[in-house]
C-alpha cells in the first residue's frame, strides 16, 4: 500500500503540465493494457494476429512515447517557472518522497525502481516482438489482403511447417536487420497503398539457397530416378483419363554423369548465367569446372537491351522457384480434384463444365462462388437431368471442390488470376528448363544445349490410356509403333543397363537388338 501511495504521489508530481500528464497516462495505460492483452492471448481468448500488432508494436511504442513525454514536460515546467530544480522538486513532490534517507531520497529510489521495471518490460517485450514477427501468422495475416494469396498457398504447400522467415530472412543478425529495414518500407507501402498487384516475386531479396534450402535438403541426398504421374481428363462426356508417366532423371549432385537434372548443382561444376531481372530471358549461360575451364552458350541474337543484370550462379531457386507459393494451373486444379475424387466423373462433362466455370472471369470471390454453384447445378438440372438423377450429393461436392480451387488460386483484390507467376520447374510455357535448353543459346561452335525430351525423363506413358503404356513390348503395326518402340528402348536402356532382369523378368532378346539399334550403348 505504501508503494502504491508513493506511486500516486509520484505521478501527481510528474503531472506538472498537460505534457507530463499525458506521458504519465500513456505509459501507465499502455503497460496495463499490454498486461491485459497478453493475459487474454495466453489464455487463448484472442488468437487474431492483428491484435499482436497492437500488443507487440503499438502498445510498446505508446509506452516509449509516454516515457519520453515525462521528462519533456518537466523540462518545460522548469523553463516556464525559471526556478531551481530543488525548489521545484520540493514544491511538486510530497515531503515523504523528497526526504533524504540513507540511500538518497525516496524519489530517487522510486525512479530507479521504475526504470528497472521499464527496462525489463522493454527487453521482454522486444524479444516477444521479434518472436511474434517470426511467426508465419504475422507475415501472412498482418498485412491482410497484400499477403493473402501467399498465405493461402503457403498453408497448403509442402513447406507449410517451415516458417516464412526461414527462407525469406535466413540466419544471422545482418539478415535480420536487412529484413527489418525492408519491412519498414513494406509497412509504408501497405499503409499508403503503394504496392504492386500482384506482388512481384522477391527473387532478388531471397537468401542464398545454401543458407536456406540446404538447411534441410542438400545435393548429396538427391537420388536416382523418380516417377511422376499426371492424369489429364478429357472434355468428353465421361471425362476420360489420359495418363502421362514420366521417369525423371533427378540424380544426385554427387554423380558425375551429365544425364541427371541435379548435375547442375554438383559440387565439381558451377553453372552461371546472366539474364534479365526476372531471370527468364538468358543472355548467356556457362558451366565452370574445378580446373577453371568453362563452356559458354550465348543467345544468337544478342540484344543487350535493358539493365545488365548481375551474373548469377545457379542454385535451387533458379528452378525450384515456386516450391511453396504454388498456384495451380486451372486444368491441373480440376484434374487433381478429379483424381482425388471430390469431382466425380459420373457427372457428365464434369471436366469441361468445371474448367469452364473456373475460367469464367468472375468479378469477385462472392460472384465466383455463387456463379460456380449456379452454373454447375444449373447445367445438370437443365441439360443432364436424367443422367444426374440421384447424384445431387456428388454435384454439391463438385461445387465445393471447384469453389475450393478458386479460393486457393484466384485473388481478385490482388489481381492474382490464373497462372500469375511462371514456374521454372519443368518447362511449362517454354520457360523453366527451356530458358537454357533451347536452340537460341549456342556455343562458339554453334551448338546448342540439348532439349530433347528423353534427356531428362523417360516416358512410360504420354497421354495414353494406361499409366504404363510403353512398358509393354511395342506392337508390330499401328500408329504409335515408332513412338512406343523408341520410348520403351529408351527406358530399358537407362533402367535396364545395370539390371538385365527387370523386376525378376528376363529382358526380351528384342531389347538387346533395340539397344544397339538406337545407338545408345557402345558398339
Amino acid at each position: 500500500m505504501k508503494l502504491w501511495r508513493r506511486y500516486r504521489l509520484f505521478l501527481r508530481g510528474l503531472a506538472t503540465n498537460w505534457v507530463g500528464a499525458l506521458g504519465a497516462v500513456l505509459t501507465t495505460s499502455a503497460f496495463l493494457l499490454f498486461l491485459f492483452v497478453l493475459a487474454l492471448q495466453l489464455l487463448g481468448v484472442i488468437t487474431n494476429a492483428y491484435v499482436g500488432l497492437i500488443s507487440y508494436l503499438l502498445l510498446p511504442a505508446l509506452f516509449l512515447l509516454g516515457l519520453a513525454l515525462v521528462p519533456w514536460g518537466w523540462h518545460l515546467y522548469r523553463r516556464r517557472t525559471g526556478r531551481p530544480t530543488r525548489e521545484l522538486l520540493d514544491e511538486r513532490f510530497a515531503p515523504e518522497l523528497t526526504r533524504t534517507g540513507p540511500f538518497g531520497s525516496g524519489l530517487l529510489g522510486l525512479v530507479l525502481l521504475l526504470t528497472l521495471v521499464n527496462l525489463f518490460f522493454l527487453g521482454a517485450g522486444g524479444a516477444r516482438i521479434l518472436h511474434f514477427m517470426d511467426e508465419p501468422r504475422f507475415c501472412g495475416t498482418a498485412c491482410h489482403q497484400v499477403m493473402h494469396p501467399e498465405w493461402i498457398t503457403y498453408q497448403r504447400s509442402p513447406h507449410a511447417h517451415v516458417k516464412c522467415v526461414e527462407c525469406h530472412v535466413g540466419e544471422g543478425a545482418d539478415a535480420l536487420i536487412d529484413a527489418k529495414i525492408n519491412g519498414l518500407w513494406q509497412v509504408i507501402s501497405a499503409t499508403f497503398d503503394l504496392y504492386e498487384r500482384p506482388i512481384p516475386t522477391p527473387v532478388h531479396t531471397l537468401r542464398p539457397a545454401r543458407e536456406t534450402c540446404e538447411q534441410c535438403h542438400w545435393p548429396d541426398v538427391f537420388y536416382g530416378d523418380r516417377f511422376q504421374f499426371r492424369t489429364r481428363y478429357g472434355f468428353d462426356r465421361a471425362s476420360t483419363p489420359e495418363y502421362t508417366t514420366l521417369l525423371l532423371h533427378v540424380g544426385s549432385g554427387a554423380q558425375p554423369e551429365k544425364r541427371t537434372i541435379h548435375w547442375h548443382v554438383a559440387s565439381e561444376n558451377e553453372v552461371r548465367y546472366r539474364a534479365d531481372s526476372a531471370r527468364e530471358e538468358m543472355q548467356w549461360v556457362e558451366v565452370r569446372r574445378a580446373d577453371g575451364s568453362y563452356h559458354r552458350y550465348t543467345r544468337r541474337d544478342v540484344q543487350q537491351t535493358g539493365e545488365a543484370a548481375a551474373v548469377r550462379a545457379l542454385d535451387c531457386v533458379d528452378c525450384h522457384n515456386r516450391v511453396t507459393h504454388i498456384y495451380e494451373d486451372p486444368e491441373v486444379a480440376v484434374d487433381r480434384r478429379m483424381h482425388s475424387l471430390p469431382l466425380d466423373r459420373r457427372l457428365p462433362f464434369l471436366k469441361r463444365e468445371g474448367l469452364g466455370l473456373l475460367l469464367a472471369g468472375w468479378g469477385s470471390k462472392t460472384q465466383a462462388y455463387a456463379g460456380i454453384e449456379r452454373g454447375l447445378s444449373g447445367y445438370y438440372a437443365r441439360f443432364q437431368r436424367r443422367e444426374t438423377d440421384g447424384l445431387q450429393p456428388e454435384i454439391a461436392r463438385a461445387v465445393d471442390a471447384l469453389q475450393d480451387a478458386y479460393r486457393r488460386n484466384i485473388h481478385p483484390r490482388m489481381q492474382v488470376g490464373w497462372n500469375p507467376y511462371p514456374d521454372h520447374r519443368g518447362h511449362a510455357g517454354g520457360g523453366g528448363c527451356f530458358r537454357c535448353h533451347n536452340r537460341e543459346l549456342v556455343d562458339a561452335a554453334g551448338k546448342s544445349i540439348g532439349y530433347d525430351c528423353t534427356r531428362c525423363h523417360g516416358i512410360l506413358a504420354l497421354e495414353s490410356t494406361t499409366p504404363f503404356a510403353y512398358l509393354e513390348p511395342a506392337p508390330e503395326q499401328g500408329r504409335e509403333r515408332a513412338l512406343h518402340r523408341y520410348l520403351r528402348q529408351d527406358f530399358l536402356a537407362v533402367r535396364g543397363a545395370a539390371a538385365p532382369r527387370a523386376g525378376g523378368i528376363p529382358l526380351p532378346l528384342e531389347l538387346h537388338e533395340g539397344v544397339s539399334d538406337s545407338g545408345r550403348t557402345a558398339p
Partner: protein
Amino acid sequence: MRAIPLAVGLLLGWLASLAPPMAVSAAAQEPVEFTRSRADTVAGKCMTCHKKESPGLYRQWYMSEHAVHNVTCIECHGAARDEVDAYVHEGAYIATLVTPRDCGACHESEAQQVADSYHATAGEILESADAYMAHVVGGLPAVIAGCESCHGARIEIDPAAPNRIARESWPNSGIGRLNPDGSKGACNACHTRHSFAAAQARRPESCSKCHLGPDHPQKEVYEESKHGNAYYTHIDDMNLEQDRWVVGIDYFEAPTCATCHMSATAKQRVNHDVGRRISWTLRPKISHMKDDWQAKRKNMQDVCAACHHEEFVKGHYYQMDGVVQLYNEKFARPAVAIMELAAANGAAERPSAFGNEIDWIFWELWHHEGRRARHGAAMMGPDYTWWHGIYDVGKHFYFDFLPAARRLGDPEIDAYIDRMLAEDEMHRWLHRPTGELKGDIRSGQLQEIYRGFFHPAE
C-alpha cells in the same frame, strides 16, 4: 548348333547393356543421316517431343493415312548431310522443307504429273515481268505475303537461320514454289499438312485458297453454279474419305473442282496435271485454244458424261465457246490493238507501265472483268458471265477505256476508234437510235451478228 550363335548374341547383348551411361551420351552425339533401318527409332524420338510440343501437328499426322502405313516424321523430313537446307536437330539431319521430290519418293507418278502441270510453273510467273506490278505498285512485303503465298516463293537458304531457310521465303506453300532441290511446287498447297488427306484436296475449299477474288473467281462461280449448289446440299453423300473416288461410281451427287479437273472417271485415272481437261485458256488478254485441245476437251466431256447426256454436254460447250469468242472479238482484240498502237506511238504520258490511267482500265478489262465473264461461262455461273463479266467489260470498254484512249490525243488511235464504231456491226449500236435497235432485236437481226461465235477458235 543353332543355339551357339543365339547364346553368343545373348552374351553380347548382355555385355552391351552393361556399358556405362557415359557411352550413351557420347554415342548419341554423332548426328545420324536418315536411313530406313533407323527410321523407327529416330521418328520415335521426334514424336516424343512433338506429341507434346506441337500436339495439333502430331494429332493431324496420327489421324492420317501416313500414320496407318507407318510413314513417320523422318521419312519426309529426314535429310542427307549434303542437302543445302539440312541441319542437325536432336541428333538427326533433317530439313524443314518437304518438296515434291520428297513426296515423290513414294508417290512417284503423282510427283511426275505435278511436275508436268501448269501448277508447277506458277512460281515462274514471279520471276518474269508479271511480278512487275506488285513490286512497283505494291512492294516486297506484299509480294511475299500476297503473290508468293499462292504462286510459290523461290526458297532462299539462310545459314544463320535455325532451320536454314530465310524468313522471306518460309513459311511458303505456294503451288509453284521453287525448291532448293530443283523441284517445283508444294504438295501441301492442296494436301494440307500434316494430315495430307486426299479428302481435303477433293473439296472445293482446298482450291479456293487461291482461286477466288476479282480476277479469277472460280470459287464464287462454283458456288453460284448448280454443281456447287448440289455439292453443298449433298456434301455428306460425297464419299470424300473413301480411298477410291470415281465419279458416277463412288459418288454422283455433284462434282467438285477436283472431279472435273483431276479425279478418276470410269475411263480415266486420277491425274495431278490439272490442265489435261482444259481446252481454252481463259487467262490471257485474248483467249486461245490450248495445244492438243481436242483431246483435252474429250477428257473433260468424259467427266461430264458420268452424269450428263452427250447432247447436254455439247450444248454447254456451244454456249461457252460463244461467250469466250464474244469477249475475244468484240472487246479484247480492239482493246489490245489500241494498247499496241499507244505503245508503238509512245502516246502515253508516263514511260512506266501502270504509270498511266489507261493501263489500269485495260488491266481490269481483261485481267478482272474479262476473265470473270469467261470463267462464268465455263463453269455455269450466269451472274459472273453477265453482271460481273460482260456487263462490266462493256461498260468500261465504251465509257472508260475508249475515252481514255481518245485522251491520249494520238491521231492513229482516234482513227482506229472512229472506224471501229462506224464499221464494226458489233459496235455500231452506239450511234443508232434506241427504237431502231429494239426493232432489230425483235426481228433477230441484231443477234445474227453473233451467230458465228459458237465454236472453238481456229
